[in-house]
């Protein structure tokens, strides 16, 4: 930027650090937020989140953000709006005059901040309005797997688009890495392996979670699929746990080397976000991160969606069952299984009887030990 040399233009791609894309999966489960209302109302949480997003956008002019809501009956985009272009809808409804008139205080706001704020609040409001009481009845879970998949699709799209803008080499790389056997561009994958760490669009996912995980046990497989995709693409999943327990999210952080924090004081949400979750991957190399040493590695069984720590595993397909399946047939692959002698008593080593004394005794009776006799 400072130099007026024309050659600067060519170096820009390599010297410029890649911006980072922060994708926030925001758990908007109404049941959990209702329970939290005393300490942290949803409106405060959204306000805190917006400040955090602004901080992220302020770090680098090219930083990007995306917000997905993981609601109780569906997962939806909060920012960017996916289906209708936001500018046209507001223009249709409000027009220029209305925009100026409605928000005079907003005119001095940095434009990216304002766009994010408007869209997030509007879409969140729409989402809440579209939630009927019927949706909430008997449904206390959250669509975490869907939100994670949407977030990953967006990251994939942005990574491809960014790589296309900044030279196609990285695209090949990403394809080879992501596609596995599909994108067999072997030489392309290796050439940039050393450099791509800094050149690629840096993506990370932050999950702001309030729901308990026992409700989402039926999403075990899709969630794990999402986690493995992140692991493969080297996208860290950070988890900011405001309430509830999160079995699978702990595994997500552990597998993708993300930050896991369970808030002891939900009112300090903004503080936690700013301190622990703002640094991107490059900065994190120089920081001592809040590490989680205890990780809950329990799995969900396939038959009753229970979270188990001891299960029966089909040796063919590795499905997990919480009890031996009916007819001893694997519910997934249909193989008839031999049930081992489980539930039997563990093999205990019989305690050795101490025969030493008797042996000593008999030997003492038979051949008495020679006692040292004092020499003359």
């Amino acid at each position: 930027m400072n130099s007026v040399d024309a050659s600067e233009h060519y170096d820009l791609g390599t010297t410029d650090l890649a911006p980072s894309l922060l994708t926030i999966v925001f758990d908007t489960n109404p049941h959990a937020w209702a329970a939290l209302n005393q300490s942290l109302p949803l409106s405060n949480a959204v306000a805190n989140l917006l400040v955090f997003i602004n901080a992220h956008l302020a770090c680098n002019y090219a930083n990007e953000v995306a917000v997905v809501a993981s609601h109780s009956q569906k997962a939806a985009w909060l920012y960017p709006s996916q289906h209708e272009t936001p500018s046209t809808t507001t223009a249709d409804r409000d027009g220029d005059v209305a925009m100026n008139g409605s928000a005079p205080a907003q005119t001095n706001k940095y434009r990216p901040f304002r766009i994010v704020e408007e869209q997030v609040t509007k879409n969140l409001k729409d989402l809440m309005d579209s939630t009927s009481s019927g949706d909430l009845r008997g449904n206390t879970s959250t669509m975490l797997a869907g939100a994670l998949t949407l977030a990953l699709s967006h990251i994939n799209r942005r990574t491809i688009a960014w790589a296309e803008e900044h030279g196609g080499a990285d695209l090949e790389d990403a394809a080879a890495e992501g596609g596995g056997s599909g994108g067999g561009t072997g030489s392309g994958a290796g050439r940039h392996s050393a450099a791509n760490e800094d050149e690629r669009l840096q993506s990370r996912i932050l999950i702001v979670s309030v729901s308990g995980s026992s409700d989402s046990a039926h999403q075990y497989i899709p969630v794990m699929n999402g986690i493995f995709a992140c692991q493969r693409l080297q996208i860290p999943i950070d988890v900011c746990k405001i309430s509830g327990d999160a079995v699978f999210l702990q595994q997500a952080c552990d597998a993708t080397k993300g930050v896991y924090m369970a808030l002891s004081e939900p009112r300090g949400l903004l503080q936690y976000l700013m301190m622990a979750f703002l640094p991107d991957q490059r900065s994190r190399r120089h920081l001592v991160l809040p590490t989680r040493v205890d990780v809950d590695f329990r799995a969900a069984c396939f038959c009753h969606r229970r979270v188990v720590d001891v299960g029966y595993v089909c040796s063919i397909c590795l499905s997990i069952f919480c009890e031996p399946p009916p007819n001893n047939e694997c519910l997934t692959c249909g193989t008839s299984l031999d049930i081992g002698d489980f539930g039997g008593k563990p093999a205990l080593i019989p305690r050795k009887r101490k025969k030493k004394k008797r042996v000593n005794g008999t030997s003492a009776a038979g051949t008495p030990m020679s006692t040292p006799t004092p020499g003359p």
Partner: protein
Amino acid sequence: MADSDEEYVGDVTEDEDDLQVSRNDRTRSGKRKQRGAAEWELSRTWETLVEGADGTISSTVEGLLEAGKRKRLLKDTTPLQRGIIRHLILILDLSQSMSEKDLRPTRYLLSLRYAQEFVREFFEQNPISQLGVLGLRDGLAFRVSDMSGNPTEHITSIQNLRPQDPKGLPSLQNGLEMARGALFHTPSHGTREVLVIFGSLLSSDPGDIHQTINTLVTDKVRVRIVGLAAQVAICRELCTRTNGGDETAYGVALNEQHFRELMMEVTTPPAAYSEKRTASSLLMMGFPSRTVEADPSLCACHSKPSRGGYLCSRCGSKVCSLPAECPSCGLTLILSTHLARSYHHLFPLINWVEVPWNRASISSACFACGLHFPPVPPEDQWHTAENHAKGMSASSRYECTACGNHFCIDCDLFAHEVVHNCPGCQSKSMRVPGNAAITSDGMDTTA
């Protein structure tokens, strides 16, 4: 530029064919018979180019690119026994003989590339197994990556070898001794295997390799070798002796594809290794959680003091690493994440179908990423786009038949190859279809 594009397509085609052949014979009778394994080197990619109506080939090239993206592996649902814990050390020859160019681009680059694919495939097939990588260079053996169950680590460290150059002479003995050391502590219920990629015709050893072979036989380490040059007597002896007289463990690659086949053969879980339990059984397994204590305590497996560890879910004894068998109650302890790695084979994502123009108007953008689709043209132009490559949707839309949402080609590819989730199905409140997902492979109109 056009040249490299074509090469890229050809490349993908070969790979896909190879994988399919090695995985499943059933796919040989598939629709792509004309590009079967025998003809792979005679595929003339330029002949498939047809001039479009406007006199350029750009549309065909784009079509080929997209069709190439769209082609994907048939889902592998053959019941393989994945519940076998294997311990395998992959030894890569990184000596000067690997810079030969008889395998393209060089033996070195090709074997590194295949090694990465091997790692990925190995963990797909053997999710609860462990792998380590060693390299042979300058008469020394060095550790490329430690024994672990995380494929990403191995692949990154193999990738880091790329800028380096192969040099010096290899020492088979040093490599085997180091592999033996790495496998020495592995529990007895798993297998101990070594796979050597050996490009040289000699081994410069510090001692008597026959003694090393004897110790390998005693330690029940099985060695398999893929040679790249010619058959070497000591390799043959090594494989024969460590495999109980079986000579098939030593193979010499004839060409690139054969090399790949020989390597990928090893990823298939060995069938005959489990002698005690029958082919299919229900195993009781524990999924212990990791704990860290304030004060060090002795672990049950090595009696070494440590603070971190995994507590057996049944009896509470502490073991240092997973997978393991609980030393006190005998329960198999594994990480549930290892098991979960293979679940996308069990519940594969159904293939999405192409959307013809007459149904394309219901969507304007990709459901997952928001990419805008090309607008629907007037009805009289619909059929002109029909001569596109097979497997490609004329309207650039792909539909998940379960949720009815439309997706772009990149999201289709990403969903099927990386995430294995449908963004549409997961975003709506409907339960995972479970068993129904297995049989719904019938919509494979594209492969």
